[in-house]
């Protein structure tokens, strides 16, 4: 095939391209011509993402092996930053803390989102459903930072919620700069997305399956557990994965709602990067995060698409 394509036809002495092509066709010879049309559509994104996406990520991994001398980064290949970071207690504390927070948020958000997505998918009229989906999309177009700041006003010690508690005669309690605050932020970040993704997979469930389960006498909760959840598994797992990715990398909620103590990996990265030239160490943290996320993503996809037992 390839040799066939590469066969060059004898030069035809005409400058009219159309005539040239028809003559070649009449001669019955195949000519390799650059598929300019196809290339001009397939290449731009490839080139752009290779240069400005894949290469920077690879470069990030590369500079984790560089060293900083006299406040300048020197290209080299040393495990210095790796051995430094991986032998530090504060790094592993942050790693475990971030992992636990993200895993907790993933579980909680998925648990809260599911009844909501289930209700929207099955318990509302079509027109209401469309309105609710539109409302779920709205938060994506509000600034996450502004919503975070708004929560600060609600949650602070003298804020709206504590004042409301005071009105009904309850003691104020600390919500801002606690783990609770961080989770409020995580929910703000992830809940609409997780509900939407679960909803999309629930909407495409074959309803006759559910009816069949009912007709066969399957109780309500058992139907949800044995029919609905397995049918929507891919959507649920993908939603959870996105939730994990978002919360694992978020530095806004832990810092501005959780008080920043103990630090998460992303706050470590911003601190290390913004406060000086220790980019290689930040790159080590980032690489560790990428590896963790890749493992999580691989595991989730395996789980989502494995055959049903």
């Amino acid at each position, binding site marked *: 095939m390839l040799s066939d394509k590469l066969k060059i036809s004898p030069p035809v002495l005409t400058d009219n391209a159309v005539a040239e092509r028809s003559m070649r066709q009449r001669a019955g010879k195949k000519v390799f011509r650059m598929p300019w049309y196809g290339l001009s559509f397939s290449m731009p994104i490839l080139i752009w993402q290779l240069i400005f996406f894949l290469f920077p990520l690879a470069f990030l991994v590369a500079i984790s092996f560089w060293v900083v001398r006299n406040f300048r980064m020197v290209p080299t290949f040393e495990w210095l930053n790796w051995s430094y970071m991986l032998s530090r207690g504060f790094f592993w504390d942050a790693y475990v803390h971030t992992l636990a927070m993200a895993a907790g948020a993933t579980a909680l958000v998925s648990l809260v989102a599911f009844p909501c997505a289930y209700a929207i998918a099955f318990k509302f009229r079509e027109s209401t459903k469309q309105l609710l989906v539109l409302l779920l999309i709205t938060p994506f177009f509000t600034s996450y930072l502004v919503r975070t700041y708004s929560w600060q006003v609600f949650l602070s010690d003298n804020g709206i919620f504590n004042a409301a508690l005071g009105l009904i005669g309850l003691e104020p309690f600390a919500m801002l700069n606690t783990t609770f605050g961080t989770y409020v932020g995580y929910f703000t970040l992830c809940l609409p997305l997780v509900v939407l993704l679960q909803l999309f997979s629930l909407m495409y469930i074959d309803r006759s399956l559910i009816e069949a389960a009912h007709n066969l006498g399957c109780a309500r909760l058992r139907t949800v557990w044995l029919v609905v959840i397995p049918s929507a598994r891919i959507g649920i797992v993908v939603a959870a994965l996105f939730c994990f990715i978002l919360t694992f990398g978020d530095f806004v909620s832990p810092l501005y709602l959780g008080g920043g103590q103990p630090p998460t990996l992303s706050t470590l990265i911003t601190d290390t990067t913004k406060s000086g030239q220790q980019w290689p160490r930040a790159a080590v943290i980032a690489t560790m995060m990428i590896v963790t996320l890749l493992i999580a*993503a691989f595991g989730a996809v395996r789980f989502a698409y494995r055959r049903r037992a």
Partner: protein
Amino acid sequence: MNEHRLINFLLRCFVVLVFMFIFTPIAGSFVFSFNIDRFPSLPLGGFSLHWYEAIAADPAVWQAFKNSLTVGVVVSLVSTLLGFTAAYTDFRYQFFGKSMYMALAMLPPTIPVVIMGLAMLAFLSRVGLSGEIYAVMISHIVMCAPFAMAVIRMRLAQMDPNIEAAAWNLGASQWKAMRYVILPFTAPSLFAALFVTMAVSFDEFAVAWFVSGLNETVPVRVLNTLQGQVSPTINAIGTIVFVTTMTLVILAQLLLMRRRKPASA
């Protein structure tokens, strides 16, 4: 399906609660932006446009809006172009390694923004672009092109591939078919992609914060305010941005709904 009144009622109540949680901070920032108090609490203070006057008088905010707008326009144009070519490639061609190709095109939004920010900062400062407004544009195009591609690909999915082939059979060249068949069909989604990518770029703060240097965009301005002297001007900026983005999104939605049957959702 067998129904149970109480369970359905409870589920509906739960949905209302979830939506209340989602909209509390949005409504809150809207209300607080018109509130005279620096630290709003109950009972709420009086109505005031003070915070809007404060940002109107702040040249840094004006500059930030100018930067965001410049970045947004460039980013939306380039990402929509890139997204269109990628969506069309996916629609029309099958080739070896296509899944890798699509993965590369779709991947950027799944990388945590902190990592993207650090990677872009390290790379762009190496080529002498960090701190320039172009740095924000380049990073945002990387992050927005997948969204444009998704929007346009969904529109192409509604098109019968035979229509393009029919145009070829009737003697149209590939480019002619592109110009007179594909482009008119995808036009609404192209506009939708322009608006969506501009909205995404207008809201992105983390990567912009890493690479923008002194060229603050609006969200970076908000982040810097959040770090320093916290001030309700954030709410005023947020409300303005929200109204702007929602206008863009609703325009995009209207464009997508035109000439499309509502049942295709």
